[in-house]
């Protein structure tokens, strides 16, 4: 992100989504902005209830019936032949989304490979389906490309596998097939919603490495939704941390891991047990995520924030700029705020990481 002017692929501005439940209205997303550049990987990190899945559902236009977009825009830039098209995805109807965008230009990989695949269709048919529908390929062409894709995602003996059904494959294999389907129409953007959470840790690593490889080869921009900071460290260029429906810190992966500024981010990083020292309690963020049924006054993180200021209970903090790429929304960054440092444990761990890198000549 330095000298070369990166092309903007997706630009989300001020998105607000709420949904109706029998108990009232829940403001799930409360004003979210972010930008995805070509070839980048952005990770949206948050715990359950933070709203990260709803955000990407809005991009794909697959919000449920009782979820409504209150405000905001999602501008998608893509190439159709020679021309550059620039549209607001929120303004498109469901039909238009399905015809032009879903699967074709923006593809999604979901969390559970068991339920993402149609159990009554063969693998081959499922991979070919998108190509035939979106690109009007002939069956023969689609078949050839499907075999190539299965090979690309690392499935051994792809021609044989074309006839297999999902239940004949293991979880890791199934997820690879899902990725193959996602890639089948050469999308510009790939959204992965916790793609490895349901998989074993040894398979997880392989799937992440696979997505990285493909991304480099095909120059796709990727959005990852995850709660696992290990995944983030491995794949992301840019990280956005979400809490209670808003981004509370955004930055490059280095900035977030080596110079986090928001107390919630400190909490997330500290909650991962270090692979070195095992003494002392883990720094744990107390309490639980807020119930978004209730109107938020001030900073929703304040009740769990050990470094909360009085103003956090009155006014929600705006985004403070730390660098061109690093932003955090906490009153601690205000010039009048007391100088608060990250917890000692975390500080030491980051020091340790820096030392480790020096040793490896980085």
């Amino acid at each position, binding site marked *: 992100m330095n000298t070369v002017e990166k092309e903007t692929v997706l630009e989300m501005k001020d998105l607000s989504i709420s949904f109706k439940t029998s108990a009232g209205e829940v403001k799930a997303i409360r004003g979210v902005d972010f930008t995805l550049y070509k070839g980048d990987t952005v990770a949206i990190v948050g715990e359950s209830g933070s709203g990260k899945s709803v955000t990407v559902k809005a991009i794909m236009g697959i919000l449920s019936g009782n979820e409504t977009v209150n405000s905001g825009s999602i501008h998608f830039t893509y190439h159709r032949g020679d021309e550059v098209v620039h549209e607001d995805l929120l303004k498109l109807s469901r039909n238009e989304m399905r015809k032009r965008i879903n699967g074709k230009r923006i593809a999604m990989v979901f969390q559970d490979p068991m339920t993402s695949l149609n159990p009554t269709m063969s693998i081959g048919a499922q991979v070919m389906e998108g190509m035939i529908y979106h690109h009007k390929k002939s069956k023969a062409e689609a078949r050839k490309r499907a075999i190539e894709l299965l090979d690309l995602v690392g499935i051994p003996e792809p021609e044989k596998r074309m006839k297999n059904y999902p239940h004949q494959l293991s979880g890791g294999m199934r997820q690879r097939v899902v990725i193959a389907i996602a890639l089948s129409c050469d999308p510009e953007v790939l959204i992965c919603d916790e793609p490895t959470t349901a998989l074993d840790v040894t398979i997880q690593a392989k799937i992440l490495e696979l997505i990285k490889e493909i991304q480099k080869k095909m120059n796709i921009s990727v959005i990852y939704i995850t709660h696992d900071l290990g995944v983030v460290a491995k794949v992301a260029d840019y990280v956005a941390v979400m809490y209670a429906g808003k981004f509370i810190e955004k930055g490059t992966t280095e900035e977030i891991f080596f110079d986090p500024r928001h107390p919630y981010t400190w909490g997330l990083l500290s909650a991962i047990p270090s692979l070195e020292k095992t003494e002392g309690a883990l720094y744990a963020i*107390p309490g639980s995520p807020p119930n978004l049924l209730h109107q938020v006054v001030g900073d929703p993180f304040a009740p769990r924030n050990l470094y909360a*200021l009085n103003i956090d209970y009155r006014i929600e903090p705006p985004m403070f700029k730390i660098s061109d790429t690093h932003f955090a929304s906490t009153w601690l960054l205000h010039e009048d705020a007391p100088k608060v440092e990250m917890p000692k444990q975390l500080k030491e761990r980051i020091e340790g990481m820096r030392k480790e890198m020096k040793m490896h000549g980085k």
Partner: protein
Amino acid sequence: MNNQDILFKPGDFELVREDQNDFVDEAYAKESYWRDILSRFVKNKGAVIGLFFIFLIILMAVVGPGMNEHTYDSQIIQHQNLAPRIRAIESLNIGIFDGSEKMSTSTGVVEVNKYVNPEKETGLENTYYWFGTDVLGRDIFTRTWTGTRISLYIALVAVLVDMLFGMSYGLISGYFGGKVDMAMQRFSEVLNGIPTLVLVTLLIIVMKPGLFTITLALALTGWIGMSRVARAQVLKLKEQEFILASKTLGAKDFFIIFKEILPNIFGQLIIMSMFSVPNAIFTEAFLAFVGLGVPAPNASLGSLISDAFKSFTTHPYMIVFPVIVLGIIMLSFNLLADGLRDAFDPKMKER
């Protein structure tokens, strides 16, 4: 960041907490389970209407037979086949409920009024039969409500027995599984294969026909549905972790069945019962219609309909009122049960 829009107060930028104090977690949501169900139920107009009519009918079944001076079994042959006549509506002069009825004779349609005849004294000028009388001169109004009493009684007793026995059967069968389950299910399947009519007829032959026999017959055939529902629910819950937790704490099987599982399926059982009531009433009516109902002079809605059927073409008013009451009961219970089902288990409209 618009500093000018925000008014800072003194002390704004001071830390709220000095150090890591012991955080005590606050509880999360505040709705109670039953209140939730009640509010969903109340929102369902059909269910509320159903409930209202059920109360109305029960009320009438209680006070109805005593409302006028006639009793359900007094036969006055001179008063046979009288049309409905209600004083209040008669005075409105709209042509109904004034004791007159249209009869088709071989010479054409004729309007007859047995109560008031301008040509001669009938002796019935001051007699009022609100729903008319039947072929033996009995007051249909009183008989209708007495019949309702009996029909409701039969239905409720039968459903109660079904619930207690059927529920226990299903719970035990489902919980223990294996050979026990297999044996119990095969038995109930065989029993289910015997047609209700055959069973009832056999019973009536063996025992005296009467209220008890009918109730017994209905109970014997209705419990299977309940047991299936209970069993299905148990199977769903059996492997849940809270059941395993009870086991690891040393709970015995019957403790688990009745203290852990039952409270969780109670709602479903209530719903099933509500659906069974109209079934039971209808079955009883059907049996009465076929001639296997409560013996005279007792009346149930079914036997009333059966008796009145013979005079359907000549005096249609005799059949109308029991039919309406029967219809309302069945519709109301169905609406109520439907409403309960939706209240207990809201479909995933919210996903």
